């Protein structure tokens, strides 16, 4: 985006700082990132993102299309990406479930796209207007087969804007779907939101082939390669299929060798970059003997609780997961060597608790503080659980 294009977008977005909902900030982030195609189906509590995109897209030469359902929405987004656009959809629980097959298709076909999931209480239609963190595992494992993708978790309205921009950058860089896991609380709250200036805005564009047409290999490269994307209209011959395919993109469904090579590369391109994908916030970890590890809206309650405990001279630290997938295992392992115990508050009955336990591998205690039903934790609940952990014994 050049300065002229940026100025036009700024005019479109209006005043900064804005006082907008998290859902709206997701739309702002998308427009700033260069997203010019949105397909979606309205669902509480994600509708405001679609509504914003519907009003913003025509003003910047983009396309907004309301599809018949969420399966069609993600399909349209994948198609738009192959037509060369940066594309996004937003949804919540039931819609996210419907999108799973095509998220796998986007992984298999190495299609850059962004999916914002404003989480609400499930399973099924659950509590439409209530926030939850129940899709943390589904984001990672919801589609079938082996794959890797990236998931980011904002905890404020500002971060909704910032992380949607980052989601587009990472999806373009790695040619994977990137999922932004917000929730009904962050999605519907209003906060001060600063729109980044032109020189603060760092955008990544997908690499496109530069070789002669006859020597282009659309799905080639080394073991962890991200091949240049010869999307439709560039003049390169590219066959796109969800079937196991050769480097040329042609189906090779009976070849163990081709399948292993392809799926290993799809996973390795993310796994080998996992250190560069670590996004965590650490506070009060100096001399910490115990730590609260949290993410999303719950992390704001956790920070409040940690501050209260620090005022009481308790050596409690705070670690927030901003990048959830790939999981920052090494950092959690490092933390477990420093502290005696970790508390994991989350708005589900046990999801991110599990990869934390796996990463920690028994080196310290890990306690869980689940909460469901639509209310976020209170600071007092987290303070109490930390005190219990501090006084508790290894089970």
């Amino acid at each position, binding site marked *: 985006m050049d300065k002229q294009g940026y100025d036009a977008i700024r005019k479109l977005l209006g*005043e900064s700082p804005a*006082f907008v909902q998290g859902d709206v900030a997701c739309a702002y982030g998308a427009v700033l990132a260069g997203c010019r195609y949105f397909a979606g189906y309205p669902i509480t509590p994600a509708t405001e993102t679609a509504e914003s995109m519907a009003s913003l897209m025509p003003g910047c030469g983009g396309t907004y299309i309301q599809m018949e359902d969420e399966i069609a929405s993600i399909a349209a987004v994948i198609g738009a990406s192959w037509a060369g656009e940066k594309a996004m959809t937003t949804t919540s629980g039931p819609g996210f479930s419907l999108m799973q097959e095509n998220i796998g298709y986007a992984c298999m076909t190495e299609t850059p796209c962004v999916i914002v999931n404003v989480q609400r209480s499930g399973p099924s239609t659950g509590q439409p207007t209530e926030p939850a963190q129940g899709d943390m595992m589904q984001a990672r494992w919801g589609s079938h087969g082996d794959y890797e993708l990236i998931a980011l978790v904002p905890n404020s309205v500002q971060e909704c804007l910032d992380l949607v921009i980052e989601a587009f950058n990472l999806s373009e860089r790695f040619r994977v779907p990137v999922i932004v896991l917000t929730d009904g609380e962050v999605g519907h709250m209003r906060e001060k939101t600063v729109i980044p200036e032109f020189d603060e805005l760092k955008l990544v564009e997908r690499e496109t082939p530069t070789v002669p047409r006859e020597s282009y290999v659309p799905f080639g490269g080394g073991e962890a390669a991200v091949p240049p994307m010869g999307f439709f209209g560039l003049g390169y011959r590219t066959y796109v299929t969800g079937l196991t395919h050769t480097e040329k993109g042609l189906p090779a469904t009976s070849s163990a060798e081709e399948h292993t090579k392809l799926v290993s590369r799809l996973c390795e391109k993310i796994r080998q970059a996992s250190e560069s994908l670590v996004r965590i916030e650490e506070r009060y970890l100096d001399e910490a003997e115990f730590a609260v590890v949290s993410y999303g809206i719950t992390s704001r309650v956790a920070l*409040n609780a940690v501050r209260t405990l620090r005022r009481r001279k308790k050596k409690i630290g705070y670690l927030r997961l901003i990048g959830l997938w790939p999981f920052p295992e090494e950092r959690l392992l490092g933390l477990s060597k420093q502290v005696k115990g970790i508390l994991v508050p989350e708005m589900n009955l046990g999801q991110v608790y599990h990869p934390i336990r796996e990463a920690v591998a028994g080196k310290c205690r890990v306690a869980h503080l689940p909460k469901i039903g639509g209310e976020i934790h209170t*600071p007092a609940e987290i303070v109490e659980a930390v005190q219990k952990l501090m006084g508790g014994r290894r089970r």
Partner: protein
Amino acid sequence: MRKEIQLAGFGGQGIVLSGLILGEAAILDGMNAVQTQSYGPESRGGAARSDVIISDAPIDYPKVVSPDILVVLSQPAYDKYRSEVGKKAMLIIDSDLVESDESALCVPFSKLADELGRRIVANVIMLGTLAKVSECVTRDSLERAVLRNIPKGTEELNLKALDAGFRSA
């Protein structure tokens, strides 16, 4: 400094919009603000509440803990929310719509709005009164925030309403 304000009434009175304008005025003052809301599925009628937290420090916990001010514009909202709020909170009520035997700042917001010709601006009158007595936002920022969030052509009416609110405090 952390100030917690709860605005309550019925859907259609502009409760959520009032919270939005108040929070926006606060950020125009250079403060931090969080606005959250709860309302039923009805577009009009059911109880509506809008919570605003204003602070000079970053706001971590985004929920109201103990409101400093409770503004109530309907009897059902008073009956529903009053008991949840501690007695130390300052209470502001629409004196024509809410019956209460406790000490409160009573202003007939709806009647004042009718006198200006449009009942729909009662919420803006309320914001004027709230800003005057609480000093949680400056008048200048509140005026700007109101103007940023109203339909074109209603500027004069809304500024009059805001002024009526300030004078009623």
